[in-house]
């Protein structure tokens, strides 16, 4: 066997890097979901009465719903009674005051993941909220942010310290009755991040949440709420990993964003949950509801996502363009390899006048994976001069995978201009030949071409993330050639 082949083989068999588990004492509740479970979670988190009522209402609504079936996905029925709905690493204190109080084992975990909470403090200038299983374990830079009036903390902390704000905004963008998973999340959400940028404040640093599933059999249900008041600006990053396990784990999160007049929110995700092995055993089911509301005029919400993980990804970060002149953007790279499945895309609801939206979606499928884009562009009657441009390109690597496009375009306004285009093809033989002829081996050439294919999206990621995302893309592609 030639060296090259050997190298390829090795790479191909390379395993999910972040698949380790942390040996740490965890506080879990029994499997299953009943009203008592909801009460128990609420009690553990010492929540006010109104929130418990809200959770119970969501739970009762969820009971009436059925799991939706329309997505282009195949997976066995999920037993919602076989999930642990709350798992928290045991810490000595309920709210660690500083990093020194955080369990060293935990810090080590995040060191391994490349998110050194301590170093972070000095070097990168990114404020991080770290969520392990169901609870937030640490938030950095809180003090510096507080000076500007920015609130950045875990959801549990926000519920205790800023109940009025939480009560005012929670569920206003994604109501608990929105869909099956939104109702489930509303009933059992355990933690997440809360971020409030007051009027006219430009957040001086990137805010970031890092999610990690550790506990076996547990589901992760976090809830993120970002409120940008008039004229505020914030850039928010989200990253995720999980240990490798042979059973499927459910992740059903909600992200809500509110943007006031002339506010701008940029939300970037690098999703790298454990994807399962190449035969489709194990992996995370990533069923997430993400929605932004451009409430004010000239507001802007931009979603950028790099999706490489999860056995199944099912999510549509969407923007409701309610304010006049508001702008919604969606940039996505979804890479599926092995037996992964993705049904992802976006929704743009044009309601206000002169609203604009732009969708750029790049799907790359390899192995036996199935990758679907599903997007909705909707123009309401009053959305004068709405403008949309959508582009969804799919790249197929290998003849066993699939790439699908399901766009929905609905216009009720005659001044709106909507454009959609999509292509599906494989990497051009001539492009590959060109690279190989210049001494670039096949694998690197594919990585090069894919990077170029995804560049338009990558450019929209913040610096710190772009490098990581590009590496991730290259690593995920390894072994998918030939």
């Amino acid at each position: 066997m030639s060296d090259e082949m050997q190298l390829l083989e090795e790479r191909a068999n390379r395993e999910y890097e972040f698949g380790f588990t942390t040996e740490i004492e965890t506080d879990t509740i029994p499997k299953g979901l009943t009203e008592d479970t909801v009460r128990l979670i609420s009690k553990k988190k010492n929540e006010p009465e109104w929130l418990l009522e809200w959770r119970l209402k969501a739970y009762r609504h969820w009971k009436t719903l059925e799991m939706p079936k329309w997505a282009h996905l195949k997976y066995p029925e999920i037993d919602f009674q076989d999930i642990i709905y709350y798992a928290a690493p045991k810490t000595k204190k309920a709210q660690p005051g500083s990093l020194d109080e955080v369990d060293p084992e935990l810090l080590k975990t995040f060191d391994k993941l490349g998110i050194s909470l301590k170093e972070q403090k000095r070097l990168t200038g990114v404020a991080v909220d770290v969520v392990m299983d169901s609870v937030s374990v640490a938030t950095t830079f809180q003090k510096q942010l507080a000076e500007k009036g920015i609130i950045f903390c875990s959801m549990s902390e926000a519920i205790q310290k800023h109940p009025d704000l939480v009560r005012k905004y929670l569920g206003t963008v994604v109501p608990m009755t929105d869909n099956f998973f939104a109702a489930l999340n509303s009933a059992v959400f355990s933690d997440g991040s809360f971020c409030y940028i007051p009027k006219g404040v430009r957040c001086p640093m990137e805010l970031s949440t890092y999610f990690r599933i550790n506990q076996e059999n547990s589901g992760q249900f976090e809830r993120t709420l970002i409120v940008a008041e008039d004229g505020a600006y914030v850039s928010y990053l989200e990253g995720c990993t999980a240990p490798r396990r042979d059973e499927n784990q459910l992740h059903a999160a909600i992200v809500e964003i509110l943007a006031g007049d002339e506010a701008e929110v940029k939300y970037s995700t690098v999703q790298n949950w454990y994807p399962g092995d190449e035969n489709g055993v194990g992996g995370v089911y990533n069923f997430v509801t993400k929605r932004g509301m451009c409430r004010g005029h000239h507001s802007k919400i931009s979603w950028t996502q790099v999706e490489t993980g999860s056995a199944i990804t099912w999510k549509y970060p969407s923007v409701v363009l309610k304010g006049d002149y508001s702008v919604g953007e969606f940039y996505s790279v979804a890479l599926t390899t092995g037996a992964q499945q993705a049904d992802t895309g976006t929704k743009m609801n044009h309601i206000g006048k002169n609203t604009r939206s732009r969708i750029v979606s790049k799907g790359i499928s390899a192995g036996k994976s199935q990758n679907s884009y599903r997007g909705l562009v909707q123009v309401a009657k009053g959305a004068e001069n709405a403008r949309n441009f959508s582009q969804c390109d799919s790249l197929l690597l290998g003849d066993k995978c699939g790439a699908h496009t399901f766009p929905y375009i609905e216009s009720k306004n005659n001044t709106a201009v909507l454009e959609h285009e999509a292509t599906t093809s494989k990497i051009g033989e001539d492009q590959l030949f060109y690279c190989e002829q210049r001494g670039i081996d096949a694998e690197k050439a594919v990585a090069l071409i894919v990077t170029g294919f995804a560049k338009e999206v990558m450019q929209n990621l913040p610096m710190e993330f772009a490098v990581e995302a590009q590496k991730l893309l290259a690593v995920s592609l390894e072994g998918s050639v030939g």
Partner: protein
Amino acid sequence: MDTIKTEYLKEKFNELQSETGANNLQSWRNEGFRTFSELGLPTRKNEEWKYTGVNRLFTRDFAIPHQGEDSISAEIISKAAIPGASEMNHLVFVNGKFNKALSHFETSDDFEICTIEEAYNGKFKEDVETYFNKSSEVKKDSIHALNTSFMYDSLFIKVKKGHTVPKPVYLNHIFDTTQNHLLASPRSLIIVEEAADVSIIESYYTHGSMDSFSNEVVEIIAKEDCHIEAYKIQNDNPNGNHVGTTNIRQVGKCLVNTVVISLNGGMIRNNTDIIMEKDANEAHMYGLYFLKGHTHVDNHTLVDNQKPLCFSNELYKGIVDDYATGVFSGKIIVRPDAQKINAYQSNKNILLSATGSVNSKPQLEIYADDVKCSHGCTVGRLDEEAMFYLRARGIDKDRARAILLKAFADDIVDHIKLEAVKEYVEGLIAERLELHD
């Protein structure tokens, strides 16, 4: 809200079955009705029927034609017919049933026309058994199953090997609704053998003030090296509702062109399915919906590439005015191992009024890698620069608008290869645009 009634259909179905007696395609009808009873009417939750609510049609009590002649006067036939019908094989369908006595056509040993009942009981039993009601797309949809349940006096055409049918085949559908609301179920099976050549045109006309609902299924079997042109011209009255499926199976390498023109009617749904079952098939599909009033037109297309080297091109254009709704839902499927496929799909819409709406869903489902597939979709208004260009040259606003819309529509109309039909459609469009030379 009026309630949706389907229970009475069972009664009517039993009536029809007992009338026709054994042996007469009874088992197909039984199977159809069973499927319909199981699935029920499609709701908007059904992805395939997301933008078209067929249920509300069933708030009426439909009469369902019985066995026996439904007659119609020669005057109405000629009123319904498109110009040049006398030069064609003019097949008249009254209330969904093929009426031989009123039709004028020339058959030969190479070109047979009869009812499916006759074909099945005569020398074409094998053909009917092999090809009739075999498409899975037709079988799994409840509305199609409803057609199968109530089909009677269905049409059978066979064009034999190497034969070019000299005159186009024209299916003139007439619905008599002077007495009742009518549910008609026209059904056809057209077999085009190796290297044969045929053009098929269909039109629809509702006579009377009550509502008609024609639920049609046409199955076309296209064999090696044949060439088929299939056109549908819809210029019915606003009380004429229609769900029609043209299911074309390319069982050999051949060429198929379809054009669907929808100008007037109530609720219209056209399914055009092309199933490419052999290597190197080619299909071109064109559609124009130019709507006003409350007309609702839903064009559903499917290109199922089951084998390698196939080529398909789809272009659907819509002009939507008043309260009308235009829907396009196209699907290209490339099956595993169907490599070297080129498939293109394009949908362009102009929304003229603030009260109309356009919904478009161009979809790709691809399971093979060595393919070139693309789709595009636009929704917009008339190009202001083009308007300015014309108006700067002294052309008034209305005329400038008409010129631009005509040019937009011509892209589709130009693909009608039968001169008489093309002229007729051009005339209708000019009339709509009030464009007089």
